[in-house]
């Protein structure tokens, strides 16, 4: 299948602040990559770079094996990005949907192609083609924007929180249309979303982002900052209730700025709320907030609130049954500070 994207030592800055720092990353052609992470973690910046809407301050992005830059004719016709609040041109729906085709001089069968794209997002071409941009609801506007991307039949469709601010029906149609694009012409989907259940359901690969760095969601959990040192000089992360998570001391090359604490998921242990036995140092009360069945693996993605941040752990159905895990239940998360790595 091959890689559609290859990123190498890509860094980006806003002013002097480094907001993206990716050593290496590849994305397979025709795959679905799900990206999650807190606000400000660099997700949208990464998507803009992958859309070639801007160039990275450092490093190289290869598309189909070739290093590419913004405005390159080779990427202009093949990559497209849909943001959470896309801009609709002050024109009719038909003109909005066909704009991309017109600037690419692909003017054959415009009406038919626009109609197909509108149908794909659940809009009736006859009723909507002639409507003006200000005659649409938020969900309809987002679906028109999605249709304007789908009509281009891109090789890579980048979706930045595409359903975050739309109604349930529009969200379902946008999700359905994006998957249909992958199935119809092998479009690579890169989805940024806080909707973890959707990401887990559809993604072939998942990554999470923190402080501009990428982490493998399947294997690692991030313990986000701010970090501090306690009275004994140990590195800790204070929680909202004043308790602390003890962390290992960072041991990093000197050039590493803003290190992030990461722990392998296999090093995290769950105990029933009353059972605090064990020789691990960190025993953290956590409340289960969400449990999702991962369709592809049969495991259960369990999201926990740790008074300051959330953490996801994938457990087997047996483990979930043994620990009697249900949303709302308080359990104890246990891990050793020595198992915390710094990146």
């Amino acid at each position, binding site marked *: 299948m091959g890689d559609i994207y290859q990123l190498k030592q890509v860094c980006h800055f806003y002013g002097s602040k480094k907001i993206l720092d990716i050593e290496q990353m590849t994305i397979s052609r025709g795959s679905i990559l799900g990206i999650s992470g807190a606000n400000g973690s660099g997700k949208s910046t990464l998507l*803009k770079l992958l*859309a*070639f*809407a801007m160039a990275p301050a450092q490093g190289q992005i290869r598309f189909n094996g070739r290093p590419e830059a*913004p*405005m390159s004719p080779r990427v*202009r*016709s093949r990559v*497209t*990005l*849909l*943001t959470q*609040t*896309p*801009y609709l*041109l*002050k024109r009719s729906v038909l003109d909005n949907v066909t*704009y*991309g085709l017109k*600037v*690419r001089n692909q003017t054959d069968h415009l009406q038919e192609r626009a109609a197909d794209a509108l149908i794909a997002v659940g809009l009736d071409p006859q009723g909507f083609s002639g409507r003006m941009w200000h005659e649409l609801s938020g969900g309809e506007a987002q679906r028109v*924007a999605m249709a*304007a*991307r789908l009509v*281009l039949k891109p090789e890579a469709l980048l979706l930045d929180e595409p359903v975050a601010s739309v109604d349930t029906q529009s969200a379902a149609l946008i999700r359905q249309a994006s998957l249909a694009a992958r199935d119809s012409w092998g479009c690579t989907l890169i989805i940024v979303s806080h909707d973890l259940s959707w990401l887990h359901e559809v993604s072939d690969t998942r990554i999470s982002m923190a402080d501009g760095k990428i982490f493998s969601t399947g294997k690692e959990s991030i313990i986000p900052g701010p970090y501090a040192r306690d009275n004994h000089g140990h590195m800790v992360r204070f929680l909202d209730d004043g308790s602390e998570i003890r962390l290992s001391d960072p041991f990093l090359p000197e050039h590493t700025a803003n290190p992030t604490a990461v722990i392998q998921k296999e090093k995290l242990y769950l105990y029933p709320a009353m059972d605090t036995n064990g020789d691990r140092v960190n025993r953290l009360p956590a409340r289960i907030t969400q449990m999702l069945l991962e369709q592809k693996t049969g495991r259960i993605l369990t999201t926990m609130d740790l008074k300051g941040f959330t953490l996801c752990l994938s457990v087997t159905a047996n483990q979930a049954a043994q620990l009697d895990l249900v949303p709302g239940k308080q359990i104890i998360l246990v891990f050793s500070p020595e198992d915390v790595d710094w990146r």
Partner: protein
Amino acid sequence: MDYLISGFVKGLGLLISKDASTWSAVGATLQASTASMAVSLAAGLPCGFLLGYYDFPWKRALRTVVDTLLALPTVCVGLLIYALISSRGPFGAYDLLFTVSGIAAGQAILAFPIVTAITASIIESIDANLKLTLVSLGAGKKDILATCLWEVRYGILAAAVTAYGRVLTEVGISMMVGGNIKYHTRTITTAIALETNKGMFADGIALGLVLMTIALAVNVSLAFLRKR
């Protein structure tokens, strides 16, 4: 007060009777202002787009210069153009002095910073998602320029009307560069100044009415376009 009313009535009579000198001034005004607006829009729109869209060193300084030129005195422009196109000036060979083309050149210089500054301000205030959307849809640089300008077309129209108002009502350039020659370079504003000096209020009022009518027609057209 009576002489004003009788001047008004007489002015209407001059317009209706197609008085040659009155309509000659109207023609010269429309000729010069149309040509100057065409030039200033053709140059000012792309310059305003570049100034508002891109970040580059000295951008703020350049904006300050352009904004300062909004208050450019018409007599200064007249003086500059006169110096440039008089027989001793670098463009003396083109015989532009005391011609409508000379007036148009001066008025284009007057309108250019207005079009540029207002366009730059409008482009700066464009939704940040527009550029991202256009790039996402595969637009090239020319497409981005054309689409951005089209998206802010009402603002651009307002810029054009503002510049047109300044061009239409200026006296300094028309007087100095045109020379106020009857049936040739006499414009509405120079004619009003002359007729008023001579005590011919009726002629002045007739021309003033035309000026107001043109301004009204331009604004009504703008309102109509906005409505569409």
